């Protein structure tokens, strides 16, 4: 008799896949096709909510070798990620309807199919019960998002796709796999457990090497210098960028990194490792460097891309700080940045669809043309910067507290400086949009209604997260980290 | 009687040996390919015959006798064939014998 947790976990994994044949069958009636995606998304979110209610449970899918199995396990970290992803899927679909049709793109069916597959992989990743499972779904995410990145099919898109794939797969083959096998070699198993899997007799040097391998092997976390794939993936249509930056890919990366730190090494171990300071400073440096690069980008989407790189720096920083507060901070930031950044991308896409503007220098006065869009943008930007009354405050607050706990005073400076840089390069956009004179004969012309709806929802969520951030924090702290 | 056969066989053998040697000498001494061929011919015909004959006398009645006979026949048949083939292909290969005062219009 399967426990309801088992059934729900399997359901969370299979539901998006069940949508695939439906989408394929309905490929000639777009409305039905998107309806399927939306419906499945909604169902998936409900499934995740009920998983949240259950709180615990697990299932072994298949055992390949003794102590090497595909298995799912419920734990708060995964639940947070699962909830975010499953919530944002239908929203993104909603937005994509407007975008893809407004743009009448080809291969829309393929787009929705692989979107669903990617979400399924993310579910598996969020609820993976051991490192091997995590790795498998991590790679499935990579493969399933490749067709989305190269959606345009142009030579440029293929080139970007190649960078995307070779960097992500390269890092995971050359660093991630040896890290995983090394873990098996030293620990004898790969099962996630609070406090880590290693016995005390494993030398800190070996552990440091492993941690380093993980840090670079999980390329989706875009830890510098392995961040190049993210700007390269800018060739993708905006809904995909949203998926990459907010829902699936980069979040999968940082989530995996946090999971590894918490459940493979254990935060206490990581805190003591000789390599940790180096990684912390690497993350901090990444934050600032990426911000500086972002400031010099005039292309809207690539500025957002570099912004993501540095924001991911926050999350990895939190992971390496390895205090309970810091971990909570990075998890919160996964959520906050997800909603903030997806709003920003939605806005960029809306601009592009409605007015074919992709450069920031073209945005003067556009605020009067697309008021809703730019108000939403401002909210998202403020959340990412970390100003009240928006969700971003919480994550930055706990990250700062985390760096205090771990005694990295310098990181306080890094965080505050980068917030200033954020203000500069994010608020420049609404500033241009609202303060500069409007183009003559400007009338209000937003993007398609579905897109605008999606934008509004995510923007409002940024506020909601400010209000409910405390509860979220409590839930995360309920997780056994040690 | 046996000593007579022994004597005969010895004579054959020695004579054969001498002819063989002469043939070999010819192959070494003669000026060009075609002339050497003649010397080789000596060893294939009479010399071989004499030696095999000597052996036949030496071996006495029995299967070996016939085998020797076969060997002799074979040498006699293949010897000239081989030298003919040699000469022919030498000719085709563009080798010209000295003192070739034939009108080779068909070559």
């Amino acid at each position, binding site marked *: 008799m399967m426990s309801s947790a088992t059934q729900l976990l399997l359901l969370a994994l299979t539901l998006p896949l069940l949508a695939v044949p439906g989408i394929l069958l309905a490929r000639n009636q777009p409305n039905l096709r998107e309806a399927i995606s939306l419906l499945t998304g909604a169902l998936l979110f409900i499934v995740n909510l009920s998983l949240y209610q259950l709180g615990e449970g697990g299932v072994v899918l298949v055992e390949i070798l003794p102590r090497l199995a595909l298995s799912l396990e419920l734990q708060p970290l995964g639940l947070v990620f699962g909830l975010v992803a499953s919530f944002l899927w239908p929203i993104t679909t909603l937005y994509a309807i407007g975008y893809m049709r407004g743009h009448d793109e080809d291969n829309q069916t393929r787009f929705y199919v692989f979107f669903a597959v990617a979400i399924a992989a993310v579910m598996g990743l969020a609820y993976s019960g051991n490192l091997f499972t995590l790795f498998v779904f991590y790679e499935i995410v990579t493969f399933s998002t490749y067709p989305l990145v190269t959606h345009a099919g142009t030579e440029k898109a293929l080139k970007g796709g190649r960078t995307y794939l070779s960097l992500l797969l390269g890092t995971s083959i050359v660093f991630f796999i040896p890290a995983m096998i090394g873990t098996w070699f030293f620990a004898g198993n790969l099962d996630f457990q609070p406090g880590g899997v290693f016995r005390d007799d494993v030398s800190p040097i070996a552990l440091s090497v492993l941690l380093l391998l993980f840090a670079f092997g999980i390329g989706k976390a875009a830890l510098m210098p392995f961040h190049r794939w993210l700007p390269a993936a800018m060739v993708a249509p905006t809904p995909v960028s949203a998926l990459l930056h907010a829902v699936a890919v980069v979040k999968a990366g940082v989530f995996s990194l946090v999971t590894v730190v918490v459940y493979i090494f254990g935060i206490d171990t990581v805190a003591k490792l000789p390599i940790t300071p180096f990684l912390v400073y690497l993350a901090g440096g990444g934050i600032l460097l990426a911000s500086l690069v972002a400031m010099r980008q005039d292309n809207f989407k690539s500025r957002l891309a570099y912004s993501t790189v540095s924001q991911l720096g926050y999350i990895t920083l939190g992971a390496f700080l390895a205090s309970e507060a810091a971990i909570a901070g990075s998890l919160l930031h996964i959520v906050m940045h997800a909603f903030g950044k997806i709003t920003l991308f939605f806005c960029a896409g809306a601009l592009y669809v409605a007015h074919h503007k992709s450069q920031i220098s073209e945005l003067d006065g556009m605020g009067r043309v697309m008021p809703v869009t730019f108000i939403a943008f401002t909210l998202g930007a403020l959340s990412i910067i970390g100003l009240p009354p928006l969700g971003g405050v919480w994550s930055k607050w706990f990250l700062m507290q985390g760096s205090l706990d771990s005694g990295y005073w310098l990181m306080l400076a890094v965080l505050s400086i980068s917030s200033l840089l954020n203000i500069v390069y994010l608020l420049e956009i609404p500033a241009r949009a609202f303060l500069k004179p409007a183009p003559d004969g400007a009338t209000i012309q937003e993007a398609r209604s579905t897109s605008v709806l999606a934008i509004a929802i995510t923007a409002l969520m940024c506020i909601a997260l400010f209000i409910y951030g405390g509860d979220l924090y409590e839930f995360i702290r309920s997780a056994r980290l040690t | 009687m046996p000593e007579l056969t022994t004597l005969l066989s010895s004579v054959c053998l020695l004579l054969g040996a001498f002819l063989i040697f002469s043939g070999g000498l010819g192959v070494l001494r*003669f000026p060009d390919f075609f002339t050497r*061929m*003649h010397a080789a011919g*000596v060893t294939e*015909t009479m*010399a071989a015959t004499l030696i095999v004959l000597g052996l036949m006398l030496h071996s006495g009645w029995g299967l070996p006798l016939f085998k020797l006979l*076969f060997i002799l026949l074979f040498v006699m048949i293949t010897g000239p064939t081989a030298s*003919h083939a040699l000469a022919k292909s030498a000719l085709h290969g563009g080798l010209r014998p000295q003192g070739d*005062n034939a009108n080779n219009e068909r070559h």
Partner: protein
Amino acid sequence: MKHTVSIFLVLATFWLINSGYYKPLLLSFGLCSAIFVVYLTHRMDVIDHESHPLHLFSLKLPSYYVWLVGQLIVSNIDVVKRVWSGRNSISPCAEWLPLSQTSDIGRVIYANSITLTPGTVAMDLEDDRVYVHALSREGLEDLRAGEMDRRVSNLERHGE
């Protein structure tokens, strides 16, 4: 047909003489191989009066052989002499000589006889003439005299 039979007999005797063992198994092997070879020769279609000149067998053949052996001895001695008496004793020469045989087999026998006797080699053969290389002019002249030619033709004439 008679050719087939004769070649089979030849092969069988060849086997019998060469294998010293007359046990049923080995004998049957011999039989099989002989039959197999006959089959092959049939497939290659080489059994006819050309390859297997039965019609030449007659009383004249042995007598020709006797004469030929005589020639052999003579020419052998001649060549050996020249070998020992050095270079200037030889006068190599090559010429086309006429021949009077009418059948291919006849010409072949003539040419082979020429080659078999040391001192002369038949290098090329055409319908009405043979290209001969001789170690000495005398050898060539003897051939030109044409006794061998006549004997072979007469041998073949019996065949018809």
